């Protein structure tokens, strides 16, 4: 589908036979960063009585701060900058991908609808978990795979299962975001196809199929905006849970 194609905007250089060019994916990542930067700059005036914009930014930082504190505890606040950057980047990238700038000829590219991008984000989260875990606990970190109170006769079964559920985390993180965004955009595309094709087939079909599809599409667009927020939230929430595992070694909430 055209909206998911990565196209080179101008050629860059080559490393080992791979072409490194400036693509539309890179362009829209930069657009997301610029939007995020503008949003944050407007709110960092540090006035004692916050204005509306500062209120908006502070509610986001307070939200992430609260999430990190409830999930990791007071010592988790030092991970708040990472979780905040992750949350805001995913949220803004999702929303920029939904932006209706197509009407003025700019076709937005949803960066998070590509497994390469979400995969890298998940790998960063997973590496932080590994680094924090091994730096804090050394090889005691491996006791993560043997939860407290495991019966001796189950020692052959529980560690492999725990290990598997640990190793599958980066994949589930990356796949969830990528598939949710891709599926939403395909759904919108299919509904838009219903409207265009039925209208082309004649006025009767247009009224019978096009109008209900259009109404449904309005609802689905609202749902997609919700999904953009929920997926960013879920990504940040699961990252903070995984960091909690690394910091505290099993306060057992293992979710794939």
């Amino acid at each position, binding site marked *: 589908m055209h909206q998911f194609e990565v196209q080179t905007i101008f050629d860059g250089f080559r490393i080992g036979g791979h072409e490194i060019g400036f693509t539309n994916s890179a362009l829209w990542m930069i657009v997301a960063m610029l939007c995020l930067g503008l949003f944050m700059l407007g709110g960092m005036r540090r006035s004692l009585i916050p204005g509306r914009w500062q209120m908006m930014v502070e509610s986001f930082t307070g939200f992430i701060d609260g*999430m990190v504190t*409830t*999930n990791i505890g007071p010592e988790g606040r030092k991970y708040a900058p990472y979780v905040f950057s992750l949350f805001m980047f995913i949220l803004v990238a999702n929303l920029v991908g939904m932006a209706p700038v197509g009407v003025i000829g700019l076709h937005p590219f949803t960066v998070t609808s590509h497994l390469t991008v979400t995969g890298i984000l998940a790998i960063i989260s997973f590496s932080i978990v590994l680094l924090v875990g091994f730096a804090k606990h050394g090889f005691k970190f491996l006791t993560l795979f043997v939860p407290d109170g495991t019966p001796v006769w189950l020692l052959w079964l529980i560690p492999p299962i725990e290990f598997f559920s640990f190793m599958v985390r980066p994949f*589930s993180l990356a*796949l*969830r975001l990528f*598939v*949710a965004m*891709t*599926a939403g955009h395909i759904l919108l595309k299919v509904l838009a196809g219903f409207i265009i094709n039925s209208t082309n087939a004649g006025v009767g079909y247009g009224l019978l199929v096009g109008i209900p599809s259009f109404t449904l599409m309005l609802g689905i667009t609202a749902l997609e905006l919700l999904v953009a927020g*929920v997926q960013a*939230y*879920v990504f940040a*929430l*699961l990252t903070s*849970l995984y960091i909690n595992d690394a910091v505290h070694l099993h306060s057992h*909430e293992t*979710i*794939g």
Partner: protein
Amino acid sequence: MDPEAAKLIGAGLAAIGAGLASLGVGNVFAKFLEGALRNPGAADQEQGRLFIGFAAAELLGLLSFVIAIILIFVA
């Protein structure tokens, strides 16, 4: 059977998984609402857990979507 047809049938069967995951997601929110209406005071602190359950249930539906996409476009 024609392999191309088998692929498309498999992709269609994967849609059952997506539908079942929607049951799961609905169940998560229904139970949360049920609990939250009984004890509204405790509801706000449990929102994180609500979304953990939502994410776990949703993932399986998304995986069946991935299987359908792989069957149609890659395999």
